[in-house]
C-alpha cells in the first residue's frame, strides 16, 4: 500500500518534471546532438542567426498565443505579415529617399501595426458575431488568410519590391541584436499583460469557460475582438522586422508563418482547448522549432523533408498535451 503510493507519487512527480521542463530538455538535447554531428552549428554567428530568425516567428507567435488562450486559432497571421510587408516597403520607397528620413520610418512602423490591428479586429468581429470557438475561428481565419493574401498580391501587383529607401533607422531594426531585443521586450510586455492585468486574466477565463465568463459579466465579444486585434498587430510588427532584415518585400513573405506560429505555441505547451498557457512557453516553443530547423539545415536535410518533421511535431506536441490531461483525469478519479 505504502510503496504503491510512493511509486505513484514518484510517477506523478516525474510526469510533472517532464511536463514543466520537457520542452527545455528537448531543446538542450537538440543542441547537443546537432553540435556533435556538425561542429559549425554551435558557433556565435550561427546562434545569433538562429535567434534573429526566431524573433520574427516569435513575435507572430506571441499574438497567436493570446488567440489560442481563448481556445481559438488564427490562420491569417501569415497573410497579414505579407500585406504589411508590401505596404511598409511601398510607402518607404515612395516617401523616404533622403538618408535621414527617420520620421517616415517611425510612421511606417505605426501604419504596419495599425493595418495588422485592423485586419485582426475584422477577424475578431466576425468570430464574435458567430460566437465561434475552434471550428468557426479556423474556417473564418482561413478565409481571411486567402482574402488578405490576395489583397497583398493585388496591392503589389504580384511583384517583389526591393527596398530603395535610405532610412538608416528602419534598416537597423533587422540587424545586429535589435530584432532579438525587440522580440524580448514585446514578450515581456505581453507576459505582464497576460499574467498581471485584468485583460490577461479575463482572456484566460474566457478560454477556460466562455459561458461562465459571459455570465460573470465579462464583455466576451469585445475581448475577443481586441485579442484578435493584438494578434494582427504582432503580425504587423513582425513584418517590419522581416522587411528590414531582407531590405525588400514579397507579397508571399509570410506564407507558412501561421503554421510555424501555431506549431511553436503548441510545442511550447499552450493548451489547444484554451485557458492555459504562457508567453514563456511560447518562447521555448519558438526556440525549439528554430533550432531544429537550423540544425536540420546544417546537417543537410532539405526543405521538403522538413515538412514531414514539422507535421509530425505538431501532432506529437498536441498528443503529449492530451495524454497529460488524460493522466490528470485518471488521478482525480
Amino acid at each position, binding site marked *: 500500500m505504502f510503496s504503491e503510493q510512493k511509486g505513484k507519487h514518484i510517477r506523478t512527480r516525474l510526469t510533472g518534471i517532464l511536463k514543466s521542463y520537457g520542452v527545455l530538455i528537448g531543446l538542450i538535447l537538440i543542441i547537443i546532438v546537432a553540435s556533435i554531428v556538425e561542429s559549425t552549428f554551435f558557433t556565435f554567428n550561427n546562434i545569433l542567426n538562429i535567434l534573429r530568425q526566431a524573433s520574427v516567428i516569435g513575435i507572430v507567435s506571441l499574438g497567436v498565443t493570446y488567440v489560442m488562450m481563448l481556445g481559438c486559432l488564427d490562420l491569417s497571421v501569415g497573410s497579414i505579415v505579407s500585406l504589411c510587408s508590401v505596404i511598409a516597403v511601398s510607402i518607404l520607397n515612395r516617401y523616404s529617399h533622403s538618408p535621414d528620413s527617420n520620421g517616415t520610418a517611425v510612421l511606417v512602423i505605426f501604419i504596419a501595426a495599425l493595418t495588422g490591428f485592423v485586419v485582426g479586429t475584422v477577424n475578431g468581429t466576425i468570430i464574435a458575431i458567430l460566437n465561434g470557438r475552434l471550428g468557426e475561428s479556423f474556417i473564418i481565419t482561413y478565409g481571411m488568410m486567402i482574402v488578405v493574401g490576395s489583397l497583398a498580391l493585388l496591392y503589389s501587383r504580384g511583384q517583389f519590391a526591393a527596398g530603395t529607401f535610405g532610412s538608416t533607422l528602419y534598416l537597423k531594426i533587422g540587424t545586429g541584436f535589435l530584432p532579438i531585443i525587440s522580440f524580448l521586450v514585446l514578450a515581456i510586455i505581453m507576459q505582464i499583460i497576460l499574467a498581471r492585468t485584468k485583460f490577461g486574466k479575463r482572456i484566460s477565463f474566457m478560454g477556460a469557460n466562455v459561458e461562465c465568463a459571459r455570465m460573470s459579466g465579462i464583455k466576451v465579444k469585445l475581448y475577443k475582438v481586441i485579442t484578435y486585434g493584438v494578434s494582427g498587430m504582432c503580425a504587423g510588427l513582425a513584418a517590419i522586422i522581416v522587411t528590414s532584415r531582407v531590405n525588400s518585400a514579397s507579397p508571399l513573405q509570410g506564407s507558412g508563418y501561421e503554421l510555424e506560429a501555431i506549431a511553436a505555441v503548441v510545442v511550447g505547451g499552450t493548451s489547444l482547448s484554451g485557458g492555459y498557457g504562457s508567453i514563456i512557453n511560447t518562447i521555448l516553443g519558438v526556440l525549439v522549432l528554430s533550432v531544429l530547423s537550423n540544425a536540420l539545415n546544417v546537417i543537410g536535410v532539405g526543405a521538403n523533408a522538413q515538412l514531414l518533421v514539422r507535421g509530425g511535431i505538431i*501532432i506529437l506536441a498536441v498528443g503529449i498535451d492530451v495524454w497529460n490531461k488524460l493522466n490528470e483525469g485518471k488521478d482525480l478519479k
Partner: protein
Amino acid sequence: MAAKNFKRNKVLSLFLDKSILFLLLAFFIVMASIKPSFLAWWNIQNIFLDVSIYGVVAFGMTILILCGEFDLSASSQFMWAQILFVTLLNATGNPFVSIVITLISGFILGTINGIIVTRFRINSFITTLGTMTMIRGLCLVFTDGKMVSTKNEFIAGLGGGQFLGLSSLTYIYIVILLILSVIMAYTNFGRRIYATGGNLEVANLAGINTRFYKTASFSIMGVLCGIAGIMLVAQLRAGSTQYGTDLALTCVAATVIGGTQLSGGSGSVLRTVVGMLVIVVLYKALIYLGLQAYFQNLTKGLVLIAVVMLDAMMSGRTGAARVKSI
C-alpha cells in the same frame, strides 16, 4: 424554445434550399446575357467535369462533417493519390493494379487520420493540419516538386471517353453519388454516422461504437480522395503537387452551401451536389469574365467567410442563446 428554434431552422433551410437553386439559375441568366457563350455545351460539359472530380472529395467531406469531424488533409491526400497513381502506372503499366493500390493507399491514410483522432483524442483540425503538412512533404520529397505524367492508353481513353455528350468521369461521379446516398439514407451504417454527429453522448449511450464510425468516415474520405486523384489523372494525364491545393476548404464550402450544418448530424450527400455546382459555376464565371487570378482568390475567400456566417445564422447560433459549440 427548442421547438421554436427547430421551426425556424426548418423554415430557413427550406428557404435556403430554394434560394440556392434560384441563385444558381439567376447566375446562369446573368452570365448568359453578358457572354452568351457561357451556355455553350462545351462549357457546361467542363463545369460538370470539374464538379465530378472535386465533388467526389466533397462527398467525403460531407460524410465527415455529418459525423462531426473535419479533414484538412484532403488536398494533400488528393495530391498523393495523383502522384502515386501516375508513378504506379509508369512502373507497372497495368491500370487495374495501379487503381487498386492507390485506393488502398488512400484507405490507409484516411484510417491513420481516423485512428489519431479517435484513439489519441487529438482534435481533428490539428491532426489533419499535421498530416496535411506531412503528406505534402512526402509528395514533394517523392517528386522533387516536379510534375509527373503518363501515356497509358487505358487512362487516356477513360478521361477522353464520352457518352451522351458527357465525360465518362461524370458517370463515375453519378455512380458514387448513388452508392453513397443509399448507404447514408438506408443503411444502419449511414444512420449511425448521422447519430454520431448529431449527439456524441447519446450515440455512445445508445451503444453505437462512435469511434468506429468516425474512423470509418475518415477511411471513406481517404478512398474518395484516391478516386478523385485517379479521375484527375485520367483527365490531365499528369499529377502534380500544384493541383488541388485549396481543395479541402472548397469542399467544406460546397458542403455548407448545400445546406449541411457544420456542427454535424444534419444534411445530406445530395445537397453537396448543388453546393459544388454553385462553387464551380462561380469560379468558372470569374475566369470567364477575365478577372485577374488574385481577384478570383479574393472571391473564394469571401465566399467561404459568407458561407460560414450563413451556416451560423441558419442554425440560430448568432444570438446569446447558443447551446452547442464545435
